[in-house]
């Protein structure tokens, strides 16, 4: 234990080395900006900075990438709150509440709350990562495809029961998304599905193009087509960012703690990541709330829970990477590449071969999440300036950024076409009350769900009861069914209470 504290002290000194500290600052700004721009994404930003790490040592490289990671998962919340355009799927739940709070006039406080909850979630999960990595990773290692499917199933159910007045519409949207995820070549058998002879379709539909189209283009078309706007009406006031006081955070402590727990645990499970954590956290928060019907109208608990879980997942995702050499998310997979580039194999031996480096990363993430408060304020101020730009100019450039963002995914115009098609679809989905988030999550989690499901079936000889015979899987499926049934049970209980009262 004393050795651990000594290593933490070494890590602290290394973190405040001028080069290392500057990498944290640079990484945070790049991450937040990339996370905020739809289509650019945090993952792309990590990939883009990877080549720059060739010339650096392993510690500044990893500090740069973890800072981009931590900043990037938060960045999408800014544009989500300001413009109703989430930078990444993980920021969708934040958008639901944050944008509504913006419309209610609480934009400054919403931005500040998002920054603070992100920092709290990231900081505490980094602390957890520092002290409980080995036992945490052992639990994650025991998960098989059966448990992974159950976690993904929980994520899909969460998105159906949250934020919708019509379960039927949510289910339709979800299954359309799950179906779209089957287009292209299937992972298990290599069969080509629903390509209609098109070679481009064989690579499938990238979920980022769907996200950009449905949210960004759909939102722009919806905003600009609603009424005639004269040029003089366009200029809007510039919102400030107000950090919440302790008195503002204390009533949300349970939401924050739930978000922290869910984010850290789900982040530690390889293959899930911040998106699942965000939706599950939001769904759980809605279910435990005494006023679930208010969710989607601007509820602080929903914002706090989703924001905390997103950044909490970063610490969780680092646990299996550092202790087992298994990346917990796409971003940590790229970071694993950085390790290998420098000739270091992450895993159990890392702690004995390069303990100073490991603890510098731990301390670096702690410091990064604290500095994120300042970086978040600065970047939010920058994006807030955009609010002064006339809406017609801003919307035109948003669409242009969407074109570029979609093209940047695979340098292929097909993605831009898909994005445009889904953009127009997104507009009509808004008009006819078909919820968008279930479709997004269906496309994102569909391939994972299929892979884990079929792998489980292959291993279990097509015995479906395996999902209920393994304890962790059974618990997760039971929680999912509980979430699905909760609205009906609430309705029944309400009717029963109204019955005697009416009598």
């Amino acid at each position: 234990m004393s050795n651990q504290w000594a290593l933490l002290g070494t890590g602290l000194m290394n973190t405040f080395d001028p080069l290392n500290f500057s990498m944290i600052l640079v990484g945070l700004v790049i991450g937040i900006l990339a996370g905020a721009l739809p289509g650019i994404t945090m993952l792309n930003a990590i990939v883009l900075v990877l080549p720059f790490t060739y010339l650096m040592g392993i510690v500044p490289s990893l500090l740069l990438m973890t800072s981009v990671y931590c900043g990037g998962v938060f960045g999408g919340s800014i544009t989500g709150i300001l413009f109703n355009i989430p930078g990444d799927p993980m920021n969708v739940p934040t958008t639901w509440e944050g944008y509504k709070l913006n419309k209610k006039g609480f934009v400054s406080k919403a931005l500040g709350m998002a920054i603070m909850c992100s920092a709290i979630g990231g900081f505490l999960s980094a602390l957890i990562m520092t002290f409980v990595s080995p036992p945490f990773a052992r639990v994650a290692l025991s998960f098989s495809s059966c448990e992974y499917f159950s976690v993904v199933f929980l994520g899909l159910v969460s998105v159906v029961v949250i934020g919708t007045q019509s379960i039927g519409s949510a289910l339709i949207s979800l299954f359309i998304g799950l179906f779209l995820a089957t287009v292209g070549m299937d992972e298990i058998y290599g069969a080509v599905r629903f390509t209609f002879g098109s070679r481009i379709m064989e690579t499938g539909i990238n979920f980022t193009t769907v996200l950009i189209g449905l949210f960004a283009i759909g939102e722009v078309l919806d905003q600009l087509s609603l009424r005639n706007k004269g040029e003089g009406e366009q200029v809007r006031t510039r919102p400030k960012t107000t950090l919440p006081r302790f008195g503002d955070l204390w009533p949300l402590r349970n939401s924050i703690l739930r978000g922290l727990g869910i984010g850290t645990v789900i982040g530690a499970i390889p293959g899930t990541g911040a998106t699942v954590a965000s939706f599950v956290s939001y769904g759980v928060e809605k279910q435990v709330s005494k006023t679930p019907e208010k969710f989607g109208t601007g509820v602080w608990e929903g914002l706090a829970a989703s924001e905390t879980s997103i950044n909490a997942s970063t610490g969780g995702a680092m646990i299996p990477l550092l202790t087992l050499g298994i990346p917990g998310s796409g971003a940590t997979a790229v970071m694993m590449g950085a390790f290998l580039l420098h000739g270091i194999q992450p895993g159990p031996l890392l702690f004995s071969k390069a303990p100073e480096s490991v603890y510098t990363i731990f301390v670096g993430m702690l410091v990064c999440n604290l500095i994120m408060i300042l970086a978040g304020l600065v970047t939010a101020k920058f994006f807030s300036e955009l609010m002064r730009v006339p809406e017609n100019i801003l919307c035109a450039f948003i669409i242009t950024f969407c074109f570029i963002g979609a093209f940047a995914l695979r340098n292929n115009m097909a993605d831009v076409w898909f994005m445009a098609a889904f953009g127009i679809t997104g507009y009509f989905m808004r008009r006819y009350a078909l919820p968008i988030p279930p479709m997004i999550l269906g496309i994102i989690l569909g391939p994972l769900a299929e892979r884990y499901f079929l792998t489980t079936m292959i291993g279990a000889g097509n015995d479906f009861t395996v999902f209920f015979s393994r304890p962790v899987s059974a618990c997760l499926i039971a929680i999912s069914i509980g979430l699905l049934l909760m609205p009906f049970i609430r309705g029944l209980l309400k009717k029963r209470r109204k019955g005697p009262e009416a009598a």
Partner: protein
Amino acid sequence: MSQNGTVQIESPHRPLILRSLIGPILIFLLACYLYFLTGKIDAPPSPEQLGAAFWPRMILLFLMISCGIKGGEILRGRAKGKTEANLAGAAEVNTLKLGVMIVLVIAAVYFMDVIGFPLANFLFLLLFMRIAGLRKKIVLFLTSFLGTILLLYLFVKVVYLPLPKGQWLFDDMTIGLYRILHII
């Protein structure tokens, strides 16, 4: 009037309900057609395995069931308030403006490959901002021109993104523009 302010209609408005059912019915029919298409997917390598067609079939079945659930909601009148709200909302839309914006987006994507990103983007920004309500010609031109140049510097020079250069003559024009701007 109900507690949340929506107007409750005592008896369902039949044409409204029928219009609301069109969407789920169309999706149901599409799901049936796609389910039929799953028969063309390669069979599994061995009979014990579920195969590549199993998962999409299961999803499409659930989609059909979901359409049934939605239809039930509409017939029971649960989606009534939202349906009326949608129709009311639709009346506020400037349909011509919407149509032109959609056409502009599609045209921009099409012409990006033909005439290159710089020219296509410049024209898109010019026309879209004009349709969106910006009237001052100087502002329109300068914003479109400078915005395009800035985007080229940022994404082509800094990020090395190979944005479409166009075909034939436009390819040469784009490369010439990049040379003038010292992007390449």
